[in-house]
């Protein structure tokens, strides 16, 4: 009697076939894996209510499960005349299946072949320029062209540019690989201009050079003003322009005490207004026959005296000076 009851229970159990997959539900990792594999694409495990022998009957021995087919790399199917900038439009890490090149990278003992492009982490590390092929750059330039304005035709030489835009402003932008755009060095503004473009007279130029000191380069005639004391670039730029304005207006001013400058205060010998010039004039007045002394002779004398004072004394300059004096006085021998 008891045996029959047992059988009945078993039969009842057989009818609820849909219980089986649920009872198979992950008791171990391997079972879980098996269920997934049976379901094929294993997007979701489906609850199969219809009796299915392969699913519901307990099978002994290993099952062979098919994996989803892995497609061959698409670089195999790429035509040779494909449009590469659309295959690799922007910067990205190297991917071997997208690049139809037989690449190798890695150090090996001499004679062996370096590792290929598949499963090669070294190729993924180095920055690549596959998105910057010449056609891609050309296309980007074409796309950017409509945002550009034409260069003025009149400014076709460097001289004209320097003449119309004498001031050069130099600033630097710093790009970091960080989420912040800020860099303290970006505030520094350098203003440069040629002193000849200011059209200063000798007094103003002399005063300006005394004010700017080492900021003037006599070899290139360039005045450089670096402004970095303000926190923002705009403020520094304004400050540099302010400094330039102040410098120029100060150098054009003549203070009352500047007239007290005598020959001993001169930093270098100047012929005009010097004692020597006055003496020569007086001398020529007393020598009426030399009154019509050629101006070029006086000029040569002036040049030699100035050189003698400014550049130092040597045999050549002494003989030059001697010649000019002899010419001036009309001496023979």
């Amino acid at each position: 009697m008891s045996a029959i009851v047992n059988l009945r229970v078993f039969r009842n159990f057989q009818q609820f076939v849909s219980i089986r997959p649920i009872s198979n539900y992950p008791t171990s990792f391997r079972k879980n894996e098996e269920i997934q594999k049976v379901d094929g694409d294993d997007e979701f495990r489906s609850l199969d209510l219809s009796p299915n022998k392969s699913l519901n009957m307990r099978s002994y021995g290993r099952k062979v499960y098919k994996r989803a087919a892995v497609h061959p790399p698409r670089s195999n199917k790429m035509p040779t005349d494909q449009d590469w900038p659309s295959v690799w439009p922007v910067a990205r890490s190297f991917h071997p299946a997208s690049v139809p090149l037989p690449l190798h990278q890695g150090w090996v003992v001499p004679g062996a072949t370096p590792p290929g492009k598949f499963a090669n982490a070294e190729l993924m590390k180095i920055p690549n320029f596959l998105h910057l092929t010449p056609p891609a750059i050309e296309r980007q330039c074409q796309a950017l062209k409509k945002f550009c304005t034409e260069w003025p035709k009149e400014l076709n030489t460097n001289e004209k540019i320097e003449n119309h835009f004498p001031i050069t402003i130099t600033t630097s932008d710093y790009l970091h690989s960080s989420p912040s755009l800020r860099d303290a060095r970006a505030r520094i503004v350098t203003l440069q201009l040629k002193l000849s473009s200011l059209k200063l007279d000798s007094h103003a130029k002399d005063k300006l050079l005394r004010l700017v000191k080492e900021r003037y380069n006599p070899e290139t005639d360039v005045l450089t003003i670096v402004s970095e004391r303000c926190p923002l670039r705009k403020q520094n730029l304004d400050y540099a322009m302010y400094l330039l304005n102040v410098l120029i207006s100060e150098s054009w001013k003549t203070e009352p005490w500047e007239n007290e400058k005598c020959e001993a205060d001169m930093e270098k010998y100047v012929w005009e207004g010097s004692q020597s010039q006055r003496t020569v004039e007086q001398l020529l007045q007393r020598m009426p026959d030399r009154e019509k002394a050629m101006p070029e002779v006086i000029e040569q004398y002036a040049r030699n005296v100035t050189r003698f004072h400014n550049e130092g004394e040597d045999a050549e300059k002494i003989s030059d000076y001697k010649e000019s004096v002899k010419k001036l006085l009309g001496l023979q021998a």
Partner: protein
Amino acid sequence: MAAILSGLFYSSDVYLSLSSVQSTDKVAVVPQLRQFHASAACCKVQSGRYKISPKRDKALTYEMANPPHFIAHRKSWNSWDTTSLLEGQRAAETSVEDVFIRRFVSGTWHDQLCSEIIIKRQHNLIRIAGIIKQGLAARKMYFLIGYTEELLSNWLQCPVKLELQTVENKEATVFKYI
């Protein structure tokens, strides 16, 4: 050898000074000298280097096969950024973020990664590259990529891109056996 000699010299020196203190017991102030063991410094360098296994069957990737002193010679860095340049910014923050990214990605893609995690930074963009196994279903893979990118970009407050390469199994990345 020089280090060993200097160590010997140190220990004998200490020993002498101790004996002199003990012999002159009339000295009121006993200096607080303690015996210490001075030995030669162990100059062993172990990090990033792998020992040869008895059966010579330990699998190494290219990254593992080249010890750290070959960086920039045979292999390149796993983190690319501008912090180490002259006056580079945020060096400490970047390193900590890189450690965090590595931990998060290796945990999210548990047992899937077959290579080191490569972190390349361009401006405010973070590119994370790596090689994973092909076992995952496409939908799970897409989910994990989106999950990683979305969470990391939320935490780090900048765009994050995950650029993965898949291999059939881990053996594909093996460079040599030692």
